[in-house]
């Protein structure tokens, strides 16, 4: 990195080294890219992460096991249910806690709603980065209803802190099921409308198709996950491949990129994967809302989870399919009431790795499309 910044630039051509970010609206948060350009064409873009590092993993070693839960919200605040779930799962695995069925359904409902909300932000900001402002407002409008639903469920709109070690914090409020079903009916119509509004807009397609193509094997090599990996045509979804919770009971498809308007793995494929995934999430929520009625009400948290939880020495790993790819928690306990080590693997961080390899030859404006299509969220990169 040092060398790159200090390299001499030949003044006879148009080569420049620029800082793109860290306070640039289209870098999706505080990320810096050191961009080497020759006129409009990129020679290379190197992400320089670390501006939002808050030592969350270290905090996990100093708060108790229960006390770390609100901090996990801050790992990915656009989709805070997923780190909640991952962290709860890793502690449960280590302690051998059996989570009640109803809590698992509630987890599935809350995380899938959260996935829809997160993808709405993602595709909304993506269209805005490309230059269409209206679809973002439409996305945010639908997300508002989800926020209201989740607020009624757990009391917060962004940093939910809803999952607990051994279950969840609250049962469904009264009338929530009907409200959610009504919203999902509306939402399925919205998805069709959204496709008409922007997804199949000719200008939008032309702008994204064949841009920043990531072939499948390359995506695997660089450790991409989630919609970024599936956009490259690799059918890998942790909910299907290594099912956790109650996911084996649901019927849903995993959308993969097929190169709808260009090559497989271009920006448009990643975009369309997200829009299709929202429809699948809506299906899952419907099924979960039906199945949850068989589970006894009020049975939402495992009994006898000590308040000052002491975990026997050992280590465990949990993997959940977050909105931004695989989110893994690795926990090492040493028998006290504090974790010895908490490690988080996030999808955005690995997505940053591929930018340097993909960027040569892109236009400067296509870098914005690439970052937007990878759906990176700055706090998740740095933690």
């Amino acid at each position: 990195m040092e060398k790159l910044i200090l390299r001499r630039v030949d003044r006879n051509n148009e080569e420049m080294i620029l800082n793109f970010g860290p306070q640039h609206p289209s870098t999706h948060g505080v990320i810096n890219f050191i961009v080497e350009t020759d006129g409009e064409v990129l020679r290379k873009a190197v992400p320089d992460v670390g501006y939002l590092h808050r030592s969350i993993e270290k905090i996990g070693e100093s708060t108790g096991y229960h006390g770390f839960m609100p901090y996990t919200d801050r790992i990915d605040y656009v989709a805070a249910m997923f780190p909640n779930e991952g962290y709860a799962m890793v502690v449960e695995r280590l302690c051998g806690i059996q989570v009640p069925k109803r809590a698992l359904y509630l987890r599935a409902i809350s995380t899938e709603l959260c996935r829809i909300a997160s993808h709405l932000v993602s595709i909304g900001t993506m269209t805005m980065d490309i230059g269409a402002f209206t679809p973002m407002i439409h996305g945010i409008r639908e997300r508002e209803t989800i926020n209201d639903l989740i607020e009624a469920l757990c009391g917060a709109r962004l940093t939910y802190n809803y999952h607990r070690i051994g279950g969840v914090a609250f049962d469904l409020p009264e009338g929530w099921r009907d409200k959610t079903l009504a919203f999902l009916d509306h939402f399925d119509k919205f998805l069709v409308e959204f496709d008409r509004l922007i997804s199949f807009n000719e200008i939008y397609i032309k702008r994204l198709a064949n841009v920043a193509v990531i072939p499948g094997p390359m995506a695997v090599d660089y450790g991409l996950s989630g919609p970024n990996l599936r956009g490259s045509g690799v059918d890998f979804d942790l909910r299907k491949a290594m099912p956790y919770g109650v996911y084996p009971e649901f019927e849903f498809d995993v959308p993969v990129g097929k190169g709808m308007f260009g090559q497989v793995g271009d920006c448009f494929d990643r975009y369309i994967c997200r829009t299709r995934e929202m429809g699948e999430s809506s299906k899952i929520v419907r099924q979960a809302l039906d199945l949850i009625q068989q589970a006894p009400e009020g049975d939402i948290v495992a009994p006898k989870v000590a308040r000052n939880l002491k975990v026997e020495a050992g280590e465990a790993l949990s993997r959940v399919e977050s909105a931004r790819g695989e989110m893994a928690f690795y926990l090492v306990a040493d028998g006290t009431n504090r974790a010895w080590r908490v490690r988080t693997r996030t999808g955005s961080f690995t997505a940053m790795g591929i930018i340097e390899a993909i960027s040569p030859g892109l236009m400067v404006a296509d870098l914005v499309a690439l970052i937007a299509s990878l759906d990176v969220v700055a706090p998740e990169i740095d933690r």
Partner: protein
Amino acid sequence: MMTFTEYAGSFQKTAVSFWHGLSITMSHLFRRPMTVQYPDRTPLPVRDMLPPRYRGFLEVDTAICTGCQACERACPIACIQITLEKDPANPKQRLVTQFDIDEAKCMFCGLCVEPCPTGSIQHTREFEGSVANIRNLVFRWSDPVKPFPVYRVEKGAEYFARAPLGSLVRARLEAARWNAAAVEYLPPEPPAPAVAPVPAAAPAPPTPTNPETK
């Protein structure tokens, strides 16, 4: 290479895309607007429109607080401070002489509410707490001059009568309004940043003396 038909075709597709997009935009002229003008055009005060589980400012009903400090232990960032002392007049009675909640530091996670045995500490639906002095957001539910005695839970009691949720915290917010003087008994202000000390004049170099002139 793009043929002429493809070139003309993309014009046509673009025009159709425009029509689709703009027809949706136009249809919004006839839909109900989603936006609400905060704060004065809402049908009810916003706090009354929030769901009951909303996690706003914390409120402690001192009449039913047992002084068990469970909330203090549950808080991951230590923004609750409780001090218990024996009543000098009645050695069997314990008093809560300090019960501070730093709402400016609180992250409204709700972990302190869960272990409370009587439901004394609760989230309210109050959230409008902008103040000029951030120290006004330290809510002191007890003070050393007027400590409150701890509540003894009756055997088998399941219901604990509580002041209407939100009334106590609203009174506090009212008292610590925008420019009110900071609450009494606050911990001392952090010391002002030290002024850089003026470098002392360097000691004059010893003048060489000529032993012969003595």
